[in-house]
């Protein structure tokens, strides 16, 4: 199916303009990759609800908007002052991206340990053009329209590489800001995180933004977990309530490697997260946790895929939502267990707390098992606060509203407590306390 002509023409115009600005760089292998991806996007267009993967999430508002991809020279100047509303979590290593482009002035990179590279992906690609070959999420990998669109305009993002056996002492914070005061903007950071064999690192991605204009953040993060390596990837999405967010995280995990993702969604009008993990070796472990807190007409969709392509791997998933107002949540958890992947142990849990009559959740476990000696469990619960728990707290003198807030917080904090980056955990604790008040989900006006 071809993209509707007006969408194709609009993005073709943006792409031509982008190419013109590239000068000599338009003959590089990287640019060939961009072109292939643009062609893939142009031929397919944005997905519709007729496609199974998008059945519950209608991106028509995105397709109907003419977004301007922000080119490098168009990025507005930001000062430290402008950053105040957003959390630069902790100190240490902080990479700041404004509308998808690296801001040297706002980033903080202290003296790094040996074997650690942290900085802008654009700079890393200049030094080593072969890095472009590391991208898995391109049109060749059967990527969807959003990933193809990201790759078509691929310029910058964070690059984090930790060499074999190196343990990165502190987390890397990546703050992506999307700010539009007028025309709708398309913000497309592309992050690449590589943990060498037996390396250890933690990365925190924060997505924040501010209206009144509309932004579409279409971010792609690729993470390579080497053999025996351990990576924690935390993502806090707190964009403005007028913004769209599509985030795709692709992870490959080597043998005996360990990967943990904690995805916290607080902001955005329409949010879609894809987390796709692939086991590339035996005895590896993958943990995916998520918390979505939404109200009003927010729509938050979490799609996960865990591909047990290797035997004797373990995966754990816990996704929770607190939904209020007329908000809508979606959870789709796909688990593949390939024919050779014997002794797989996979556990998936999705729990939703509905605080209003208008809030809804669509939850769909999808287990495709081709091996015969495996352990796979999944469970989903949807409900309201337990009135017996509320009464118990009240019978001890705690007011009803406080009791409800306490129980809602306890439900949500179960995910927060799994975050190992202390500064982030504290920040999330405070954010959550502010959100969950008076028996409702509250958002800043």
């Amino acid at each position: 199916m071809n993209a509707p002509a007006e969408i194709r023409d609009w993005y073709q115009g943006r792409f031509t303009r982008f190419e013109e600005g590239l000068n000599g760089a338009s003959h590089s292998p990287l640019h060939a990759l961009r072109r292939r991806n643009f062609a893939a996007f142009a031929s397919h267009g944005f997905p519709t609800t007729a496609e199974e993967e998008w059945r519950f999430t209608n991106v028509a508002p995105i397709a109907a908007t003419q977004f301007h991809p922000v080119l490098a020279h168009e990025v507005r100047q930001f000062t430290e002052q402008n950053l105040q509303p957003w959390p630069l979590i902790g100190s240490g290593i902080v990479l700041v991206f404004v509308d998808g482009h690296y801001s040297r002035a706002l980033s903080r990179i202290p003296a790094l340990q040996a074997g650690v590279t942290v900085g802008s992906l654009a700079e890393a690609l200049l030094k080593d053009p072969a890095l472009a070959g590391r991208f898995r999420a391109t049109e060749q990998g059967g990527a969807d329209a959003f990933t193809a669109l990201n790759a078509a305009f691929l310029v910058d993002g964070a690059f984090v590489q930790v060499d074999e056996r190196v343990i990165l002492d502190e987390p890397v914070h990546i703050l992506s800001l999307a700010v539009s005061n007028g025309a709708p903007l398309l913000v497309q950071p592309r992050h690449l995180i590589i943990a060498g064999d037996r390396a250890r690192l933690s990365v925190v991605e924060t997505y924040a933004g501010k209206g009144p204009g509309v932004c579409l953040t279409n971010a792609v993060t690729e993470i390579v977990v080497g053999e025996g390596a351990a990576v924690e990837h935390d993502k806090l999405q707190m964009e403005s309530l007028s913004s769209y967010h599509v985030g795709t995280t692709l992870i490959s995990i080597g043998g005996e490697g360990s990967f943990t993702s904690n995805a916290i969604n607080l902001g955005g009008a329409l949010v879609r997260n894809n987390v796709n993990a692939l086991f590339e070796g035996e005895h590896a472990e993958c943990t995916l946790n998520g918390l979505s807190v939404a109200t009003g007409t927010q729509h938050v969709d979490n799609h996960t895929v865990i591909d047990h392509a290797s035997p004797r791997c373990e995966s754990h998933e816990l996704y929770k939502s607190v939904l209020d107002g007329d908000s809508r949540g979606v959870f789709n958890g796909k688990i593949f267990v390939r024919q050779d992947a014997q002794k797989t142990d996979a556990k998936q849990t999705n729990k939703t707390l509905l605080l209003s009559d208008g809030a809804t959740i669509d939850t769909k476990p999808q287990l495709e098992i081709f091996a015969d000696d495996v352990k796979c469990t999944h469970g989903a619960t949807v409900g309201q606060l337990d009135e017996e728990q509320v009464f118990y707290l009240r019978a001890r003198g705690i007011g009803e509203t406080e009791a409800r807030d306490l129980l809602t917080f306890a439900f949500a904090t179960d995910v927060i407590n799994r975050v190992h980056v202390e500064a982030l955990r504290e920040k999330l604790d405070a954010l959550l306390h502010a959100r969950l008040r008076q028996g409702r989900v509250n958002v800043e006006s």
Partner: protein
Amino acid sequence: MSLLEVRNLHAGVQGNAILEGINLRVEKGEIHAIMGPNGSGKSTLAGVLAGREAYAVTKGEVLYQGKDLLALSPEERAREGLFLAFQYPVEIPGVTNMYFLKAALNAVRKHRNQEELDAMEFLSLVKQKMKVIDFDQSLLNRPVNEGFSGGEKKRNEIFQMAVLDPTLAILDETDSGLDIDALRIVAEGVNRLRSPENAVVVVTHYQRLLNYIVPDFVHVLIDGKIVKSGGKELALALEEKGYDWVREESGAVPSAVQEAGTR
């Protein structure tokens, strides 16, 4: 003015009458036992007094320290010094015992115009109260009742009672599910908390708890009414002879006839 005065209390759930005219007066310093067969309305009475919303009071009144108890919300009753030890304590994942108790105690203190306790003051109070019930410190930092054994849950109820220092405690079948050692520990805890300034109402099916918490008064509840009241010797008679003789003496329909009637 009595501490608690229940006058002609009628209550039920979803149109079914359960309590049909309860009269009860409790003074400070007293221990009352309410005994009765299964289904007689014991737990309903405890629930109505604590403010369970599932029950509808259709007639009568309850005065607590001269105030209309039924007009108060469950939390207001608790802040006024009423405490219900639950028959089935609820598990609350994600909220530690410590956090829960501090929130509860400070809500009560605030109501009494007392300063809220800070973390250090609270901890020293808790350490002192833990001795009353021989409470294991490791349970303090665990989520409320989550994964506790039956005995630990009941002990946690009495520990909460010790911290909150109620004026009127209602123990709803606190003995159920306890082995004899746990029963003794729980009873000793309650006895240590006794004072001339508070009172305890023990709701129980069996007499054995009353070997340890010796009541001043025993009331027999049958078919939603208190049909007989007496001293601690009444409990022993019930243990020996069952409930049917009280039923007959009071003119209530004997259980065998009642069962036949429902066939």
